[in-house]
């Protein structure tokens, strides 16, 4: 660090310390203050939208700073980045003299009483800057953006408390700021039980089944989603028998039950299987029940049960081998550490069976169906990766241990015995407001007995053949 930048940092720190001290003294005398537009007429003057210039540039740097500090992972600050990022900015034509209690904070007005900026202490409210704010330095504008954002992002009980907002602002904008410092300052004021989370999570559809990771803390106030996913499978070898090319899934996950921190809901998945032999046929109907059970020491613990029901009637020939009912239940644990997340799954899938008929055998008789008998499967999965407020990039390792797999027909009987199947794959998600776009893949890492995903018979969860690539788009609400 150069001497010049050191002095600049010290000057900034002293300025902010002075601001906070005066705010604290002011607020201590009056209790908490109200932030927002007054009814004194001072806000009725015209304002123009700010599209460019130092104020939006400072906002971008504020967002960068917040991402660097990973405030998403701090209880109570999950909404801060979207609030800073998305608040419409306006510039008033004339300065106003502070007349509201809220304006008495040094983050809101200068020593002469002119107001820098105002916002309404509600989510998604706009921020109105006054001409005097254009004289502020960039670092001060950054602090101002964060300060106003905190007024909108903090839990309702705290967002109007100038003491709390000012201290957290200082913790974030301090030259020595770190994730732990900000977290400590925030936790000093905000009780865990008062936190309401509201930004949508990412990467919920890394597989074609709704992920329990979707119950992560950032998504708790908007846990429901609807979307579409497409998976493309590759045969990759002669020993696959499903011969499925693609899987289309339309999903809808609704969480009407449970508390804010423990949503409980139902997910439905309508699927269609596409293959060279089968054409486009109805796939399984996925039904998933998920509950974010509890949170302890930043661990998110969820439980889930999933069923994939065969929708084909007795008259319809099962030409894919995936006409089985699949029942799975398990637990998930997720921990977010700064910019990284780790998520573990452990689940059990019950045994099942499906009858398969070779497609379109000649009219002379037709072949007898093969019966696939699937054994009990135990699954352990680890997801990990990097995350920011809008991006999540990671990978997973997935291990299945299956009791047995049998093929039975009038003249052909075979079984694999106990086998294991390990797979690996990348996952990436990008969020655009309420819309999340994901891409994902899966490939066999290790196996024995020449098995592949066809032997699991669970196309909604693990896919088919030798592996897959896919993409999904989902809207959270």
């Amino acid at each position: 660090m150069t001497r010049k930048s050191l002095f600049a940092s010290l000057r900034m720190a002293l300025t902010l310390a002075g601001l906070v001290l005066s705010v604290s003294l002011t607020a201590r005398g009056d209790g908490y203050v109200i932030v927002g537009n007054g009814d004194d007429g001072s806000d009725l003057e015209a304002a123009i939208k700010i599209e460019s210039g130092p104020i939006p540039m400072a906002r971008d740097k504020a967002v960068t700073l917040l991402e660097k500090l990973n405030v998403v992972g701090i209880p109570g600050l999950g909404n801060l980045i979207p609030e800073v990022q998305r608040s419409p900015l306006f510039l008033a034509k004339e300065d106003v003299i502070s007349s509201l209690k809220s304006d008495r904070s040094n983050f809101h007005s200068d020593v002469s009483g002119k107001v820098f900026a105002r916002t309404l202490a509600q989510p998604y409210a706009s921020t109105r800057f006054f001409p005097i704010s254009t004289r502020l330095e960039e670092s001060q504008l950054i602090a101002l953006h964060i300060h106003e954002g905190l007024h909108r992002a903090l839990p309702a009980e705290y967002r109007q408390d100038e003491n709390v907002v000012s201290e957290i602002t200082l913790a974030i904008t301090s030259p020595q700021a770190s994730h732990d410092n900000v977290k400590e300052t925030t936790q000093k004021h905000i009780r865990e039980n008062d936190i309401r989370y509201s930004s949508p999570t990412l990467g919920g559809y890394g597989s074609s089944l709704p992920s329990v990771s979707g119950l992560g803390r950032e998504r708790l106030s908007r846990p429901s989603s609807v979307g579409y996913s497409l998976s493309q499978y590759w045969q990759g070898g002669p020993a696959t028998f499903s011969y499925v090319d693609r899987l289309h899934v339309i999903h809808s996950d609704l969480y009407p039950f449970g508390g804010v921190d423990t949503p409980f809901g139902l997910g439905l998945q309508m699927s269609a299987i596409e293959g060279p032999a089968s054409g486009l046929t109805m796939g399984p109907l996925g039904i998933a029940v998920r509950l974010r059970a509890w949170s302890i020491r930043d661990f998110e613990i969820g439980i889930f049960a999933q069923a994939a029901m065969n929708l084909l009637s007795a008259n319809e020939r099962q030409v894919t081998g995936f006409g089985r009912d699949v029942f799975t239940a398990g637990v998930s644990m997720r921990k977010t550490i700064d910019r990284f997340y780790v998520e573990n799954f452990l689940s059990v899938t019950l045994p099942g069976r499906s009858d398969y008929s070779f497609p379109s055998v000649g009219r002379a008789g037709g072949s007898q169906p093969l019966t696939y008998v699937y054994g009990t499967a135990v699954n352990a999965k680890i997801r990990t990766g990097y995350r920011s407020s809008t991006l999540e990039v990671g990978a997973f390792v997935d291990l299945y241990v299956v009791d047995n797999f049998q093929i039975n027909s009038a003249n052909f009987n075979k079984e694999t015995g106990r086998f294991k199947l390990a797979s690996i794959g990348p996952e990436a998600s990008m969020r655009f407001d309420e819309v999340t776009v994901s891409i994902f893949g899966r490939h066999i890492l290790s196996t024995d007995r020449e098995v592949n995903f066809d032997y699991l018979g669970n196309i909604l969860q693990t896919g088919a053949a030798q592996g897959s690539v896919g993409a999904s788009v989902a809207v959270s609400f």
Partner: protein
Amino acid sequence: MRILISVLFLLGLTGCAEFLKDTKNPVTTSLEFPVTEIKLLVRGVGNMYEPSTYGQLIYTINDNQQLLLRYEKLKEYFGSISTDGGKKVEFQINLASDTTEDLSRLQLCPVTRNWTMHATWQRAHPFGADGVWSKEGGDYPLADCVSTVKEGLRLKYDMTSWYVNFARGQSQNLGLLLVSPVTIRIAGDNDPSSAPRIFFQKWVN
């Protein structure tokens, strides 16, 4: 008491009659069925669902194309098929069009590796490493192949020896493979009236 003795006597006579009928005068009936599993193996085609390899009106057999055949329910008749007194287990295949080719080498051979309708030139089935033919195009002992007897467009194969030694003898119906060094065209399974068929005699009593 007399009534009881009379009843027992009548029952005894009936039992003897049944015994005599079974041993001295056995009755058989002729049965014929279309072959239910037919799969064309084509050199160079690894797609098990290649549409031209099943459910066709006509199959072309030659050096690069061989035909798997199996009547799946044959196992149900293992205990009741008669091969006594010259009774045969016979397969009949119809030519799609007459030919002047020498058909003596158009042979029907016992298959020695189990297969499914997924079979291709390289694989008997997709379920594991043992699904690969040891010899591309299908595993069969050449010495046990049977040549045809041609009657018009109809090709007849006496597969009694195959039934006795391979199917019933090993209690496993692995089916047959039609091989030919010359190109012929045969009627396929998409026309029930001319599809390949199996004929045998079954005990009635």
